[in-house]
């Protein structure tokens, strides 16, 4: 079974430019999450999709960030325009649909390291 994949692995852009990160979850996983780790800080939740629907986007920092999951398969996270403080590692994770009272492990991708100059 292929794991969660993310593209690109590393992106270097200038302030004001646009960047789009992609995540391909494990096949059959309805849940898809985005997290990010800004330098020296903890890994923080950004948002959660169940299939193509945004279940929780409470962690999105501001309206410069736009996440989509067309067709409930892969997801993209666009940052437009990028700012210096957006630099960090963006992780994607996926899990099976949770049954009531149960917990399904989130499988993480390798992350995309974003550097905004």
């Amino acid at each position, binding site marked *: 079974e292929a794991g969660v994949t993310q593209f690109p692995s590393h992106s270097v852009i200038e302030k004001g430019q646009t960047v789009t990160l992609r995540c391909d979850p494990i096949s059959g996983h309805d849940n898809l999450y985005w997290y990010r780790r800004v330098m020296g800080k903890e890994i*923080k939740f950004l948002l959660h999709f169940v299939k193509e629907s945004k279940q929780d986007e409470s962690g999105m920092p501001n309206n410069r960030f736009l996440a989509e999951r067309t067709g409930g398969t892969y997801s993209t996270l666009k940052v437009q325009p990028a700012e210096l403080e957006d630099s960090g590692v963006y992780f994607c994770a996926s899990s099976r649909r949770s049954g009531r009272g149960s917990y399904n492990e989130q499988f*993480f991708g390798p992350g995309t390291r974003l550097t905004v100059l």
Partner: protein
Amino acid sequence: SQQGEEDPQALSIQEGENATMNCSYKTSINNLQWYRQNSGRGLVHLILIRSNEREKHSGRLRVTLDTSKKSSSLLITASRAADTASYFCATDVRGQGGSEKLVFGKGTKLTVNP
């Protein structure tokens, strides 16, 4: 509020020694998990301990959970150079719409010297 604060922030030991990392959290939990991140790699799930469990073992890993103190510890025995990585604890929290999201601490950077 921030959950899962690990200490120490950095730990350097010799191969063969044991490494202990601690994690504290602020709110009640269902589960607590430990993850490892090797440099340039993704997060790897190590072990999950439920709120009604006190101790769990997996190979050279031993995790304890004290819900009265809201703390957990991860012990790696007989460490190897390959254990060099950052270790994070995470708690799952119910978010909007019943979403299960993970709340991580800042992590402990472990270096095992050969």
